[in-house]
């Protein structure tokens, strides 16, 4: 089932107004050769023309490691010594609108939004990672108790749709062994990093390496804030995939 109103403003979806917005956004997101693919994806977003123009897409240069806006390696990434993630890329800036929409999806439980968010992830994939041949998609798992409370894992819903779009299989490689508080309820960056230490453990089977011997994993999440969740996941995967594993993460918000 799909929404028939704009997710940004609740107004009607006027196709004529939308058309020019779609063209300009798709043009900015993709090279000329990939424009048709991007156009179709952008046109599928349930946003009206005005909201489409206001979509906080990160178009400028970004940190090569974590995808934050800025022309070189950002200070946070500079300080990290043992980097486990190959790189992170995100599509949107995390603003007030994104916050509300994401909380409607995650905490209110509006699962119909999964279609919209999955589309955003697909756009991000085509923008940043199209050239990489991934072996599988995996997601950041929820703790069993949290999953029972919430009833669904929001990232799993996205992964399923993304996998259908891209043809890359989803594997659940991880389980969460530690229940951590919500990010906003924790004290700071270091506290977050510490709480994430050893929060995941391996649940996948033996890794089947592809022809070149490497193992590339696309790790999904909804938001990259400090990156400690994703790094902790990557560390666990790397420990089992061996030296040839490489993990790229993709999130909607940064």
């Amino acid at each position, binding site marked *: *089932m799909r929404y028939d109103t704009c997710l940004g*403003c609740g107004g009607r979806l006027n196709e004529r107004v939308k058309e020019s917005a779609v063209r300009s956004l798709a043009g900015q997101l993709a090279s000329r050769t990939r424009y048709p693919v991007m156009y179709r994806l952008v046109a599928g977003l349930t946003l009206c023309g005005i909201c489409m123009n206001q979509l906080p897409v990160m178009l400028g240069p970004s940190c090569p490691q974590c995808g934050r806006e800025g022309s070189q390696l950002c200070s946070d990434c500079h300080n990290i010594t043992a980097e486990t993630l190959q790189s992170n890329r995100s599509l949107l800036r995390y603003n007030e609108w994104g916050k509300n929409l994401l909380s409607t999806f995650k905490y*209110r*439980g*509006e*699962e*119909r939004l999964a279609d919209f968010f999955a589309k955003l992830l697909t756009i991000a994939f085509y923008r940043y990672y199209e050239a990489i041949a991934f072996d599988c998609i995996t997601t950041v798992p929820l703790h069993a108790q949290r*999953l*029972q*409370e*919430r*009833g*669904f*894992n929001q990232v799993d819903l996205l992964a399923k749709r993304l996998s259908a779009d891209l043809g890359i299989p989803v594997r659940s490689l991880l389980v969460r062994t530690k229940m951590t508080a919500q990010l906003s309820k924790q004290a700071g960056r270091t506290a977050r990093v510490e709480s994430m230490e050893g929060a995941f453990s391996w649940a996948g089977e033996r890794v089947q390496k592809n022809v070149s011997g490497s193992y590339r994993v696309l790790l999904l999440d909804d938001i990259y804030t400090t990156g400690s969740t994703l790094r902790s996941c990557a560390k666990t995967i790397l420990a089992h995939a061996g030296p040839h594993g490489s993990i790229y993460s993709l999130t909607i918000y940064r």
Partner: protein
Amino acid sequence: MREYLLYIKTGAEKMLSAQAYVTPCFAVDQSFWQEREGCKLHVIGKSPSLALAFSLREIVNARLKEQYGTSHPMSEEGLAELRELAVQQVRETAVLYGRDMAGVEPPGPEWFTWETGDWSVSVTPEIVEDDGQKLKLRLATSTIQKVLDGRALLWEETETLLLKREAPIHDLTAVLQRMVLSERAQWRPGIRFAIKKSWWKHRLEMSCERCGSRAKDIEYTVCHSCGQGCAYCTVCLGMGRSKCCTPYLLVPATREAASDEREAGRKTARLHWSGSFSRDQAVAAEQARRYVANPRPGLSQFLIWAVCGAGKTELLFPSIEVALSTGGRVLIATPRKDVVLELAPRLQRVFPDARVIAVHGSSLEKWEEADITIATTHQVMRYYQRFPLVVLDEVDAFPYHNNPMLERAVARAVKLEGKLLFLSATPPQYLQKRLVAERKEKLVLKKSKLPLLRSSTHVLLPGRYHGSALPVPRIETIPGLYKRMRANRPISSLLQIVRSTLAEGRQLFLFVPRIDDVERVLAYLTTFFPDLASQMAGVHAADPQRDEKVRSFREKRYRLMVTTTILERGVTIPRSDVVVLGAEAPVFDEASLVQIAGRVGRSSDDPMGVVLFLQAERAASPKAAVRQIRRMNQLAKLQEAQEERA
């Protein structure tokens, strides 16, 4: 994961009392029946899906009534047949659910798991001595009952509410199940389903127990809470997720609680109001008061139809006083949050000893107890048979109007045999038909269009409290209205009224049909009145500075306000005029235009003003609005004449 057990209770000998029950804790049921009567409990089976258990209960109950209505004893074969029926039903449900969820893997081996039970328990009555534990349980029950009194809550909400009140929630399921068995509460699944059979296609019919939405508003989902086929309601999602596996608890307000408060009621009802009614107001208020005070059952709805500026809120005071003095709680519901915020302090001033709370989405008082609750119609959804008097203000306003979910919610908040009082300046047609009788003229051929002034179900107040007639709008058709606007060509009647109004030191509302028009009209006016630009502003619903701008307008810092329909009601600004630009647009229906016209001439020192409807083409609703206003003036005159004669 909670599991729900379905069992049939039969009396010791006769089958007459056979009935099916659903329970999350069978032991509690056993001990409950043990205290009361000797009976046999036959287990049918259990499932983690609450909605499934309830749908089976309904089917089993129907079958019991049909086959065992007479005094057959329950045989083993009969039981086996019922168990088989349940299994079949589960299988069919799973197939139908799976068909709707095509392409999705079920979380378990099947969409629905059902474990057939095949044992029966005989319960012999036993008088159990009241030991410490029993006493504690009884105490907990009464505390919980008091907190939940008159509320309809999802399981999560119940828990938060009880935690907030520091009630003991240890063993909550057992306590609630006891309340359900003794018929002091009901519980249901958030979403319930039933198999709808037809010659064409059988389907699974889902509906939300809380808001009544069905079919396409219910979204199927793979649920990790119950591990079964599940669904949630998208319509009332903002108030918490109503799912197939979430218990929804309904606790009607009890009589005892009401009589408890009777003594206190006398005190809280003290009306402290120094204002006075006009003659017509006094009559109307008295009529409403009599309706509320009338203990005769059957009179459940009453309409106060009072034109804009008749002083509707004051009319309520005597009715509220009566309801409070008999120990009841009063609910005033209205679709708009602004109205809630405006009403609460006003009523608190008038009823200084009563506790008044304002309940809306972001209110902190949402879970409090009070004598007078002023709530948005959405929040009313959380009440269940709680209030002996419910007043519904602005019946015809968005979002209540034409919203079956909210209508249902308000109707449910009224206690059994309670009173529902509608309040409106422009009651919708269906309400008029239901409650307003038409005037019967002696000549059959000449059927008068004027409604009756009062009957047992309504009272009409056609005149304003200051006695002057309502300003009648002037309609003007301007061909190419929007074209002129875009090309910045002068629209003389608009410019003239803006000039004269502002020159006289009055304020002007300029209503436009769409949000985009606000900016456009503002720009247009700025080109013609560049020196007045600082005194003009525009506002619409999504404007982040909305409250601030409206406040500035009230304080006369802005003299001209371009607005969408958000200011059509609830705003009183003395010495103001109104222009509607594009009155033919469908957002301006008859009721809306009458409300807009009602902004003008509300204070007694300036009872007249200008109302101008500018339309690009001829349309029905401005005409109808003018007709309605004229009729009201006519009625007011008639009433005056009658009174002089009397």
